[in-house]
């Protein structure tokens, strides 16, 4: 990562997505958020198949179409043109969120502004007075999907920790995050607190601690 003294290495965006994809079981129904989470679909481990759900009403979402083949009525939750794969289905919004709230989607991968030591997630609003509040489906997803994975840089652009004791931004959900994939480490949210499962190459546990706003335990593997 750049801009933090003493840190020359760490995972790239692609490597963070690759690392998260490794923890998704074969055959999972998966919902991917906008940004780095979307890249997970490019790094599915060999031999595994994931079925992608997009909350605007498609199960079996495929990659973006080639230029000129876009259909304005075939889009994902980020409103970008997509395709379907064999076995896909369309459905209305109440069915789509029944899949989410009813516990039928296995894994959701989201971005974050902050994650707390207890797994609280803030990813929808800065709470600034002039901000236009916009939540979309984030609160339904974190309330309904069992495994909530977060992919995020470990610190903000100005070097502030994104993993903190308590979120200062408005919450999306309380105690909802199960695992965090950053450019520096893989961190599990457990009843015992935050546990570092894995360090990025060239990154020390101490460096991760210095850039984290909450206590970390290192798991001896």
């Amino acid at each position: 990562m750049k801009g933090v003294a003493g840190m020359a290495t760490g995972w790239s965006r692609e490597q963070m997505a690759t690392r998260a994809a490794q923890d998704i079981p074969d055959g999972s129904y998966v919902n991917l958020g906008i940004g780095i989470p979307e890249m997970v679909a490019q790094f599915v481990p060999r031999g595994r198949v994931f079925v992608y759900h997009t909350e605007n009403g498609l199960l079996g979402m495929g990659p973006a179409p080639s230029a000129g083949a876009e259909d304005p009525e075939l889009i994902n939750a980020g409103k970008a043109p997509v395709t379907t794969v064999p076995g896909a289905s369309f459905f209305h919004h109440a069915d789509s969120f029944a899949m989410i709230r009813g516990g039928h989607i296995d894994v959701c991968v989201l971005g974050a502004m902050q994650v707390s030591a207890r797994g609280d997630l803030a990813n929808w609003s800065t709470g600034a007075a002039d901000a236009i509040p916009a939540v979309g489906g984030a609160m339904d997803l974190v309330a309904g999907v069992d495994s909530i994975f977060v992919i995020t840089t470990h610190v903000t652009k100005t070097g502030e920790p994104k993993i903190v004791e308590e979120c200062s931004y408005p919450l999306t959900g309380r105690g909802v995050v199960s695992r965090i994939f950053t450019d520096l480490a893989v961190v599990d949210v457990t009843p015992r607190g935050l546990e570092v499962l894995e360090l990025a190459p060239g990154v020390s546990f101490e460096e991760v601690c210095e850039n984290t706003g909450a206590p970390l335990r290192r798991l001896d593997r």
Partner: protein
Amino acid sequence: MIDKTVDTPAEAVSSIVEGSVVMIGGFGEAGSPIELIHALIDQGTRNLTAINNNTGNGEVGLAALIGNGQVSKMICSYPRSSHSKLFPELYRAGKIELELVPQGTLAERIRAGGAGIPAFYTPAAVGTSLAEGKEKREFDGREYLLEHWLKADFALVKCETSDRMGNLTYNKTARNFGPLMCMAARTTIVQARVIVEPGEIDPEHVVTPCVFVDRIVEVSEPLHESRLIAEGRRYP
């Protein structure tokens, strides 16, 4: 034979009056009934409460309806959009009210409205600022929020094929809120790309049964928001 077709979008929306609550289908531009919205802009009906997932794009369709000062309250999940400053400007100026609803809660509130269920409990938004003032209850050790149904005077919905009675099919992800809004409005107005005779849609393939539909107008070549925006167009 029951025939709910009318000739023009203007005729289709003519009964919408000032102060109406209007559900408008679409997720972004997919499923947006743009010709019906433009007819409502031509008609100039004001003080509307509009229910949609978003607040429109560019200066066409829903964004233009808002920009034209016809909407006094917006109920939606994601009032942020690319290529549009119309809602943010009115909102920051205190000229439009916003009720922000999580997307799945919005869908279920509309479904409940259409299904005659006045309220339901959901886990979404528990522990967040959107839970403030809402009744809470625990089921099996977990906390849920009470959410109330949403109903409307009118729904404006875009579908792919309708028969003259109002049995509907949709196109891909343009389905989104359409089937729910058809159920939840006292008067449902549909624009169809194709209108066919009853019996031409396989009953197994009907998505919205005709009992939920009141008026249908054929718009065989609907405009697409993104193309209008790319061309720098605005409405009116």
